[in-house]
């Protein structure tokens, strides 16, 4: 079973994403900020990371830059999932190593479409 780390400081968003991704047969790990997500990745690198941008302690973009420099951190497919829905943020995410980008609000169709595009379902 492929694994997906859901990183978001909103419990509700994590719960909604978890429901959709469990239906898509992912094993789910959750983190509520970038620092906790890094700790989780060091313990076990997930196959996919669904990543919020604005979070306390460490934000999504700093997490991604640190992840990509870490050993094995090139491997996970990273899909941003954020309310930052302008071109400047999207470009910044891509240059930091994001594979895809979801603009909130999202629904099942968008999650499925994006996960399919990056080849993880």
């Amino acid at each position, binding site marked *: 079973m492929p694994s997906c780390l859901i990183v978001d400081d909103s419990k509700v968003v994590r719960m909604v994403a978890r429901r959709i991704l469990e239906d898509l047969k992912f094993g789910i790990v959750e983190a509520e900020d970038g620092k906790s997500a890094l700790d989780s990745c060091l313990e076990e690198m997930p196959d996919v990371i669904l990543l919020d941008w604005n979070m306390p302690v460490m934000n999504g973009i700093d997490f991604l830059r640190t992840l990509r420099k870490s050993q094995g951190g090139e491997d996970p497919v990273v899909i941003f999932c954020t309310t930052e829905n302008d071109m400047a943020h999207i470009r910044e995410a891509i240059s930091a190593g994001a594979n895809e980008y979801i603009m909130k609000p*999202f629904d099942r169709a968008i999650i499925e*479409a994006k996960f399919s595009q990056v080849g993880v379902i």
Partner: protein
Amino acid sequence: MNSQDFQLFGDIVRTRSGLVLTEEKVYLLESRLVPLARRRGMDSLEDLAEEVRRHRDERLLSEITEAMTTNETFFFRDNKPFDIFREVVLPQLLETRRAQKSLRIWNAACSTGQEPYSLAMLLKEEAAKMAGWRVEIMATDISDEVLEKSKAGLYSQFEVQRGLPIQLMVKYFQQVGEMWQIDSSIRAMVKFQNKNLLEDLSNLGKFDVIFCRNVLIYFDQPTKSKVLSQVHKIIASDGALFLGGAETVLGICDDFKPVEGQRGVYTSAINGMLAKTG
């Protein structure tokens, strides 16, 4: 809705577009025609049916037909057909058409434009292999309303997130308020035109590739056969016809045969160049 009114609307839609409305689609008819009736100041579908019987107004009949067409579409729908186009069909056509350096593609029933624009972006990405080529993408639909949206190339946040890879969005779209507009260079690659698939198609000219996906599923068997037969007349003998995943020519039209190993792709039963590739 009474059965006479259902019959009336069903006949209008079938004779004008080929779409077949079975009895279980009565909910669809109500949900789509009630707003149309209200826009025209009528209280009910009975009033709308009465208006049709009295005046047979051409514009109203068109609006009824357009309201019943399904416009579900998204960028790079199903992915695989676009992979086949890029990796199998296009390389062969670039080889066989290298003398004339010309390629014509038809997107039948293009709805709001995501499919022809997907093809245009794909071809733009392959531009290095096509220097000096003249490429024409013709996109047609029965509905003026969706054609206007297509031409504008403006899509909601939801629409651009269904099937469009983020790298292509960054490259070929601009943000316009809360909407996203496809670049003018891509819009210029596609010619949009109103066309009813039940009409004579010969004035569209010959095409090397035809995308007619998720259209035939709405037609009855004789209409499918008629449309495919017409399509065969305007596709190059070594051209490629792309149908939707739930569609086939088998048992409907002998003019085409499936391209072995390339699901959803068909070529002329005689001289079908692509069939040789397996």
